[in-house]
């Protein structure tokens, strides 16, 4: 063994750093964070726009500023970060976990840890995943790759841009490329509502008169060496493209902002069971995965829309992981949490009777004047009226005082008391 620590954190984005800080605050001293890039901060470093930290710091920061606050805290606490290092594998090793790391500096390393916190983030869905028909020219890329190259390296992909998908990164890039002199001709969204936050629709599209085509999709990509045009068609009642109503837009770049996928290849190697809806690990209320001693937080667990919630969730995870190191497995009856009416998913999958938990969820579709309710049998554990709900906005709430004999907790939206 090259190194033995109490806690190993995989990833130094907002999730990994918040989790590591919480570990430290809760009495864990031997912590190692591994980061595959050259420096800590994660994807925040390429998000040079503002809007970060409104909840966490009560002020509006850019991505790098938000990251810097955490990087400084991690440095102050003297938590070790090993950059340029990939985690290749995690295996059981008695009471501990053994991680195989590949470090640019130090080569292959074996690190033993009592707990491992997965904080690897997510990746972007790409063209292949959505199988857009047409040719395969240059000029088609995910919005995040374009963001990295524009913001960190200073190169833009083209001048005439079409964006498929209205996820937040796509919207942010619509504004960013417009500011750099490119013309964003359309944002095309297959759903009847935007994929990103409303504030981004307003600030990134409406303010720049960029048209948003809802219930439309790209049915064909043309171009030999470089993309030359896309064919866009509205969707009919059956959600199939109506080719007779299609139109063509000339472009030299197509950005894809069609969803994020938690990056769990390492988790799978470690034997962690994944949830089919979130793409992240199935966790209990301590954010521990199906493998005891392995925890998960941030976008590797569920894709978040605000970094502030990533930090909050990860701090919670770090605290729980610290307790695991000190006290071992939390014993208690497990109560399953189930998504009900209008709820696409809930997380965690189960809570331990007698403890507190934070439940996150996303609605299936936009709606107005709904109450979000968490119920155990007849007992209402939580209830709050939401004026407007969107799939793009994750809801989070705490539940406590769970009845010891509860069979399950159901979380659902209800329009019952409209007055």
């Amino acid at each position: 063994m090259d190194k033995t620590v109490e806690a190993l954190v995989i990833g130094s984005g907002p999730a990994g750093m918040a989790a590591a800080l919480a570990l430290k605050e809760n009495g864990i001293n031997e912590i190692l964070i591994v980061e595959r890039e050259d420096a800590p901060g994660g994807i925040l470093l390429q998000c040079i726009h503002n809007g970060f930290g409104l909840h966490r710091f009560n002020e509006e920061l850019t991505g790098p500023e938000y990251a810097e606050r955490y990087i400084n805290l991690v440095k102050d606490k003297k938590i070790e970060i090993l950059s340029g290092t990939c985690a290749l594998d995690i295996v059981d090793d008695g009471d501990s976990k053994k991680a195989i790391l590949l470090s640019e500096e130090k080569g292959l390393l074996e690190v033993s840890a009592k707990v491992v916190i997965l904080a690897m983030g997510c990746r972007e869905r790409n063209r292949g995943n959505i199988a857009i028909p047409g040719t395969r020219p240059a000029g088609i890329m995910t919005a995040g790759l374009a963001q990295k190259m524009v913001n960190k390296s200073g190169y833009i992909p083209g001048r005439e841009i079409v964006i498929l998908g209205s996820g937040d990164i796509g919207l942010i890039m619509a504004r960013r490329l417009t500011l750099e002199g490119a013309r964003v001709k359309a944002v095309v969204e297959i759903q009847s509502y935007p994929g990103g936050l409303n504030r981004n629709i307003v600030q990134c599209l409406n303010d720049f008169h960029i048209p948003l085509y809802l219930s439309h999709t790209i049915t064909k990509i043309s171009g030999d060496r470089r993309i030359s045009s896309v064919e866009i068609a509205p969707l009919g009642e059956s959600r199939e493209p109506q080719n007779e109503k299609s139109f063509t837009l000339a472009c030299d770049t197509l950005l894809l902002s069609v969803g994020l996928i938690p990056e769990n290849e390492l988790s799978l190697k470690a034997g962690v069971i994944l949830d089919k809806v979130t793409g992240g690990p199935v966790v209990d209320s301590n954010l521990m995965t199906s493998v005891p001693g392995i925890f998960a937080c941030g976008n590797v667990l569920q894709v978040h829309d605000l970094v502030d919630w990533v930090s909050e969730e990860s701090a919670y995870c770090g605290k729980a992981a610290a307790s695991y190191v000190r006290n071992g497995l939390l014993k208690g009856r497990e109560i399953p949490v189930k998504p009900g009416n209008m709820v696409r998913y809930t997380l965690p999958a189960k809570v331990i009777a007698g403890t507190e938990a934070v439940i996150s969820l996303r609605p299936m579709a936009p709606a107005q004047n709904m109450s979000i309710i968490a119920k155990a049998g007849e007992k209402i554990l939580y209830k709050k009226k939401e004026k407007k709900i969107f799939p793009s906005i994750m809801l989070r709430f705490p539940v406590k005082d769970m009845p010891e004999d509860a069979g399950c907790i159901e979380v659902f939206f209800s329009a019952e008391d409209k007055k």
Partner: protein
Amino acid sequence: MNHKYDVIVIGAGVVGAAVARSLSRYKLRVAVVEKEADVSFGTSKANSGIIHAGFHDEPGSLKAKLAVAANREFDRLCEELEFPFERRGELMLAFTEEDVRILQFYFAWGKKNNVPYMELIGRERTLEMEPNINPDVMGALYAPTAGIICPYEYCFALMGNALENGVELFLNEKVIWLGKKENGEFEIDTENGLKLNSTYVVNAAGLYADDIAGYLGITDFKILPRKGEEYLLDRRVGNLVRSVIFPVPTKTSKGMLVIPTVDGPVMVGPTALDIEAKDDYATTRDGLKNVFMHAQKMVPSIRSSDIITSFVGIRPVATGNDFIVGATKVKGFINAAGIQSPGLTASPAIAEMVSSVLLKEGLRMEVKPEFNPHKRMSFTRVRHLLEERNFGKFREIIAGNKNYSKLVCRCENVTEAEIIGAIHRGHTTLDGIKFATRAGTGRCQGGFCTSRVMEIIHRETGMPIEQISKKGKGSEIFPIPLRKGVSRG
């Protein structure tokens, strides 16, 4: 530089590469001219990667003769050139009584073609061999000598070895004129103004072989493009099949297949559609539906939601449907045209046939004693070591070269040392590096590693970032620098 050669090969696809390597055995000046930015970038890179057993082709045809002869060569070639190749067998499935009769028909063809070890097997045995096949299957024609191969790595290996043995390769050089001078010498002009002369020309121009022949007034064949769409599935679906799974053939193709690849992921396709344009590389909604309908009939658990990428290959079908390999009415001009399926399989035999035609046409072919049939490896692939958790071996490799500890493509486990190796072997486009190393072929499709690979190309070759392309000029990835003096990284 004296651009005067004994033989010029037009086209650096699998046929051109195999011919070049064959000719590199002899004391000859040989050049290959290719219009694309890298070897195999035309039809070959989109090949299904199957070394066929040889029962699909009509007895007596050149296709049948060359494919069966060449199949046997692959063990030796693989040993010499170290490209990925595995004999996995082919299974042609029958789902109806009519299909069963068709199997018998192809079994008889295979016998006539001298395909060894073929068997007609029943339902039980078929399902035992391939448990994921539709249990409605009635039986199969089994040919164990069929194999799977990585088509572009095979082409790179052939050409790489040819170059090591003295062949010259001109990439990004599109032939726009081919003529014969009074002294009998051929002269070739390219779009960029390169002028080449030779005594012999081998026409391995794939889809454009008829255009090349046309410059010399040879108009006795046409190349008809036949499009095929293929879909590659995510690694996570696992080893759905071990052998290559065929339906009974259609009139125009071997049908839509379920293909295990040497790199792991399963591929489904190809469609077969005769098209007008030789550059119609667009996949279609119909093609996708068609491929998955046929594939799911054979292997029901295949899902289109597992697609990670798709592509089109265009088969060059010559008039008459058979390969055209041989001398022409123009002395010294040799055709290797109409090389559709089973062209990849037949390529070593096509190359030998071209060599013997050249000999007959009067080329002096003296064996070169210094010919080295073994390709020099420029890098080691670490992916398999990581998959097998062979960390001891991996440590040794890192000790020899620290760049192996820099993981660039994390989906396919490709390190910086491999990328640098590929660049130094002449691959300087993103597609070229992707095919040579697999960086960017995984589930994120280059979302993470593209910028890193670009930085490495820039560092190793000095090429400005804005000129780095996907597949040659006109396909630059980030063509516009925002302002001068901006730092990278």
